[in-house]
C-alpha cells in the first residue's frame, strides 16, 4: 500500500472521490484547490467513480456503453449498493473513455473498457462493489474523525452515517465540508462487503436511469449532437466489400451546389456538403469505377454446395474442442447419425445507422469526437493512426447507442468521421451512413454449413458428438460449439475455413445462433429416433450439470411440458450456455399449412445467471433477445450475388414486426448467490432450435436451413 498524499479533489460544489485504481491498489491524492487537483489528476492515473455534492447529490460515473442493455443503471446500482447511497439522490454520467483507469479487469492481463459479449455486469461487479465500499469507508472515516469516535461504532443507512451510541447522525452531503482522508484505503475484504441478504438495490427493480429521456425525445445519440456551422459528410463505398475507387467526375462534383470537400479513402469516396440533403445528392452523383476484389463473383447461396464438398474433403481443419476419441466411438457405435444444417448471412440492422460527429481544431492538432460506440482501448489509437493527431489531443465523447449488437464494436465509422473532419479543420462534420450504406457495406454474421455427426450405443445413449463448421469468419463461427453441460464422453468440434471476402462481425450471440440451432436440433432428432422424450433425453445428459438441469426442470414446469396441448400446437425445447449464463427455452407454435407461416404463441425460459442485478431489465433483455431471435429465424436473410448484397433496406431485408410477436414471453431466474453472468445474448440463440424442434413435433419434418421463410417451410412440409 503506497499512499503518499491524502485528500480529495475539492471544488466549490463538492468533492470528487478520486481513487487511483492501478493494479488494484487504491490511492488518494491531496490538493489545495481545484487547479492543483487537476494537475495531480493529469500526472497520476486516477479514477473518479463518484462526485459527492454538498447538497447530497451523488454523481456516479458509468464506464460502459449504453446501447439498450441497461448498463447506465446496473453498474451505478452496484456502486451505490456498497456506498450505501440514497438512490433518489443519484445521477449517472458516462466516465471518460480511458481503459487504463475505467477498464474492467475481466480481460486477462489488461483492463479494458469494452461493451461486448454480455460481459459488462459480470466483469465490473466485483470491482464496483470494491470501489463503492471504499467510498463508504472514506465517509465513515470522516465522520469518525469529526465525532472523535471509533470507526467500528459507525453504521450507515442510505446516504446517512450513524453513531448509535451517541445518537448522532450526519448525511453524506453534510459530510462534504468535513471530509478527511484516511492514511490509506486498503482493499475492503469480501467479508466486509454487504451480505447479499442485505442488498437494497441489487436484485431489486430500480427503474432505468435512461428511460425518461428516451420517452420525451431528449436522449442524445451521436446523430443528435449539434454544433454551430456543422457540415455533413457521406461516403460512397463499393458494392463489393473492399473494392478500391477511382473517381471519374471530380470536376463535375466540385461544381455541385452545396459541395465543400472531397475525401478519398482506400475503399470509398467521401463528400462533405453544407446540408445533409446536399451531401446525399452529391453522393449519388459520384461516378466511380471499382477494383475487383476477393468477393467478386461470389454467390452466397451457391456456396453451400462447395461447403458440402469441403466438409468431406481432406483440407485443413482447426480443432476447437476435442474430448475423448470421437472417431473410435463412431466406429464402435450401435447407430450413427449425420445431419447438415445451414444458415444464411444476417445483418445487424441496429436502428440508428452508423454515424459520428467530429471537429478538428483550426491548426489540425486536436480532435473532439462524439460517437455511439461499444468502446475499445483502440478508439483513440485508431483515430491517431489515421489522422496523425497525437493521442493526447484526441477527445472521444461517448453518446447513447441506437443499438450496437456487435456492429458498433468496430472502429471503421469512427475513423471515417475523423478523416472527414480532418479535411475541413475548424468545422464540425456530421458523418452519416444511409440505411442502404449500413446494410450493403455491413459486416454480417457468417453464412455456414454445419455437419453434425453422432453415435449411440445399444441402449441409445449418446457416446460421440462431432461438429464441423464450414464457412468464413474463424472465431465468429466457433462460439457455442462446446457442449460442456451434456455428458457425452467423446466430442470433437472443428472449423474448416473457406474465405469469401465478405465483411463479417460479431452479431448478438455470435456463433451461438447457428451452432446452438444445429446442436439442439441434432440432440432432439436423436432423442425422437431413440423413442425418448426430448426433455427426458436432455435430463439424462445433464446428470452431471445440476445448474443446467435446474434450468431444464424449471422451464419444463413453466411450459407444462408433457401436458396435453390445443389441437395443432406443439412445443420444442432448446438449451444453451452463453457468457456463463445457462438457459433452457421452450416455445409453443402452430403452423399455417397453406402459407408455410409458423406462429410462436408462447416462449418460456429458465435461466441461471448468478446474482441478477436488475431482474426486470434482465428479463427485458431476454424478451428482446427472443424477439430478435425470432426475427432472424423467420425473416432475416441477406444474400450475395456476384459479390454484392441483394438487399438494400427494410423493404427487402425484413425484420419481425409487431404482428408476429408471441402472446407471451415468460422468464424466470434461478436463485443464486454466484457472481453475475452475462444475460444479454442468452435469449437470441435459443429460438431457432426450440422452433425447429417444435416444428418437428408438429409435423415430423425437420427444418435445417435458417431462416425458416414460408417458402422453405412449405418446401420441407411438402418434401
Amino acid at each position, binding site marked *: 500500500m503506497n499512499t503518499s498524499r491524502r485528500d480529495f479533489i475539492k471544488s466549490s460544489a463538492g468533492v470528487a472521490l478520486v481513487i487511483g485504481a492501478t493494479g488494484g491498489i487504491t490511492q488518494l491524492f491531496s490538493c489545495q484547490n481545484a487547479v492543483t487537483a487537476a494537475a495531480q489528476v493529469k500526472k497520476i492515473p486516477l479514477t473518479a467513480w463518484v462526485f459527492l455534492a454538498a447538497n447530497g447529490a451523488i454523481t456516479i460515473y458509468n464506464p460502459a456503453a449504453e446501447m*439498450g442493455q441497461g448498463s447506465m443503471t446496473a453498474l451505478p446500482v452496484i456502486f451505490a449498493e456498497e456506498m450505501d447511497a440514497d438512490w433518489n439522490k443519484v445521477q449517472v454520467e458516462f466516465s471518460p473513455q480511458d481503459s487504463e483507469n475505467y477498464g474492467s479487469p475481466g480481460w486477462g492481463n489488461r483492463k479494458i473498457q469494452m461493451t461486448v459479449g454480455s460481459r459488462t455486469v459480470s466483469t465490473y461487479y466485483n470491482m464496483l462493489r470494491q470501489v463503492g465500499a471504499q467510498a463508504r469507508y472514506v465517509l465513515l472515516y470522516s465522520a469518525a474523525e469529526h465525532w472523535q469516535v471509533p470507526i467500528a461504532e459507525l453504521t450507515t443507512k442510505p446516504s446517512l452515517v450513524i453513531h448509535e451510541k451517541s445518537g448522532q447522525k450526519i448525511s453524506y452531503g453534510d459530510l462534504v465540508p468535513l471530509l478527511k482522508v484516511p492514511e490509506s484505503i486498503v482493499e475492503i475484504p469480501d467479508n466486509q462487503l454487504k451480505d447479499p441478504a442485505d442488498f437494497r438495490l441489487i436484485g431489486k427493480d430500480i427503474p432505468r436511469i435512461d428511460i425518461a429521456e428516451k*420517452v420525451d*425525445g431528449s436522449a442524445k445519440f451521436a*446523430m443528435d449532437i449539434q454544433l454551430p456551422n456543422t457540415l455533413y459528410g457521406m461516403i460512397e463505398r463499393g458494392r463489393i466489400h473492399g473494392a478500391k475507387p477511382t473517381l471519374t467526375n471530380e470536376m463535375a462534383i466540385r461544381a455541385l451546389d452545396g459541395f465543400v470537400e472531397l475525401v478519398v479513402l482506400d475503399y470509398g469516396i467521401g463528400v462533405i456538403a453544407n446540408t445533409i440533403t446536399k451531401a446525399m445528392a452529391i453522393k449519388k452523383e459520384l461516378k466511380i469505377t471499382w477494383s475487383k476484389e476477393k468477393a467478386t463473383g461470389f454467390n452466397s447461396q451457391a456456396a453451400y454446395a462447395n461447403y458440402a464438398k469441403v466438409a468431406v474433403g481432406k483440407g485443413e481443419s482447426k480443432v476447437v474442442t476435442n474430448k475423448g476419441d470421437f472417431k473410435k466411438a463412431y466406429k464402435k457405435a450401435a447407430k450413427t447419425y449425420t445431419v447438415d444444417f445451414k444458415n444464411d448471412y444476417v445483418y445487424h440492422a*441496429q436502428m440508428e445507422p452508423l454515424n459520428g460527429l467530429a471537429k478538428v481544431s483550426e491548426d489540425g492538432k486536436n480532435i473532439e469526437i462524439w460517437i455511439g460506440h461499444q468502446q475499445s482501448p483502440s478508439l483513440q489509437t485508431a483515430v491517431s493512426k489515421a489522422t496523425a493527431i497525437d493521442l493526447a489531443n484526441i477527445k472521444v465523447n461517448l453518446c447513447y447507442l441506437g443499438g450496437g449488437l456487435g456492429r458498433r464494436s468496430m472502429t471503421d465509422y469512427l475513423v471515417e468521421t475523423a478523416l472527414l473532419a480532418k479535411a475541413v479543420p475548424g468545422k464540425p462534420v456530421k458523418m452519416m451512413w444511409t440505411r442502404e450504406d449500413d446494410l450493403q457495406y455491413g459486416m454480417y454474421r457468417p453464412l455456414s454449413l454445419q455437419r453434425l455427426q453422432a453415435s449411440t450405443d445399444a441402449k441409445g445413449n449418446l457416446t460421440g458428438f462431432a461438429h464441423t463448421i464450414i464457412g468464413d469468419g474463424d472465431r465468429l463461427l466457433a462460439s457455442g460449439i462446446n457442449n460442456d453441460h451434456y455428458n457425452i464422453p467423446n466430442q470433437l468440434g472443428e472449423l474448416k475455413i473457406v474465405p469469401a471476402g465478405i465483411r463479417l462481425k460479431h452479431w448478438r450471440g455470435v456463433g451461438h445462433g447457428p451452432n446452438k440451432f444445429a446442436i439442439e436440433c441434432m440432440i432432439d432428432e436423436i432423442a425422437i429416433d431413440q423413442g425418448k422424450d426430448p426433455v427426458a433425453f436432455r435430463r439424462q445428459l445433464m446428470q452431471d450439470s445440476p445448474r443446467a438441469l435446474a434450468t431444464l426442470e424449471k422451464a419444463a414446469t413453466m411450459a407444462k411440458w408433457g401436458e396435453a396441448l390445443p389441437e395443432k400446437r406443439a412445443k420444442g425445447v432448446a438449451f444453451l450456455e452463453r457468457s456463463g449464463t445457462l438457459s433452457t427455452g421452450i416455445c409453443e407454435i402452430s403452423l399455417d399449412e397453406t402459407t408455410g407461416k409458423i406462429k410462436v404463441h408462447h416462449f418460456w425460459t429458465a435461466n441461471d445467471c448468478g446474482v441478477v442485478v436488475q431482474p426486470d*431489465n434482465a428479463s427485458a433483455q431476454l424478451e428482446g433477445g427472443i424477439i430478435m431471435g425470432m426475427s432472424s429465424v423467420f425473416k432475416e436473410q441477406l444474400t450475395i450475388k456476384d459479390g454484392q448484397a441483394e438487399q438494400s433496406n*427494410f423493404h427487402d431485408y425484413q425484420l419481425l414486426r409487431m404482428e408476429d410477436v408471441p402472446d407471451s*414471453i415468460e422468464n424466470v431466474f434461478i436463485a443464486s448467490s454466484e457472481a453475475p453472468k452475462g444475460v444479454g445474448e442468452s435469449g437470441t440463440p435459443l429460438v431457432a432450435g426450440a422452433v425447429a424442434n417444435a416444428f418437428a413435433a408438429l409435423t415430423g419434418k425437420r427444418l435445417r436451413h435458417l431462416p425458416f421463410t414460408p417458402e422453405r417451410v412449405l418446401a420441407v412440409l411438402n418434401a
Partner: protein
Amino acid sequence: MAIYTIHINEETKSVTADEATPLLWVIREQLGLMGTKYGCGIGQCGACTIHVNGIPVKSCTLPIDAVGDGQKITTIEGLSEDNSHPLQKAWITAQVPQCGYCQSGQIMQAATLLENNPTPSKSEIKQHMNGNLCRCGTYLRIIKAIEIASGKKELTTL
C-alpha cells in the same frame, strides 16, 4: 430553394429549403428537434413518425413542400412538456425502451391510436403499430404500455 412557414409544436417557424427536402431533415437539422429519428429514409421503420394535423406521418418521405401554411405538425417534443402524456407515463411504468432510438416514433404512432380508439384491442394495437420497427424487440412492452394508457391494464409501479 424556397421559404416555408411551418406550424410545429404550437410555434410558427420560417425555414429555407429545397421543395423536395424531407420534413425529417428540416425538423432535425434546421429546427434542432432531435427526438424524431432517421432510420431508413423510405417509410419502412417509423422512427421518424410525427403528427400532421393529428395523423401519424413518416416524416422521412414527406417533402417540406407538402406541409405548407395551416398544417399543424407535432413532434415528440410537442406531445407534452414534461413526459405527462398518458402514453409517456405508461412507457415509463412498463420500462419499455432499451436503446430507445425508435421510441419517439412508437409513442407518436400510438398516440394517434388512442385519440381515435381509447380502448383498443390487442389486435387493433398490433395492426396500428405494425409499421414501427424495434430492433431491441420491445414490442410486448409497447403493447403493455398502450394497454396501461388505455386503462386496460393497472398502472402499477415497477
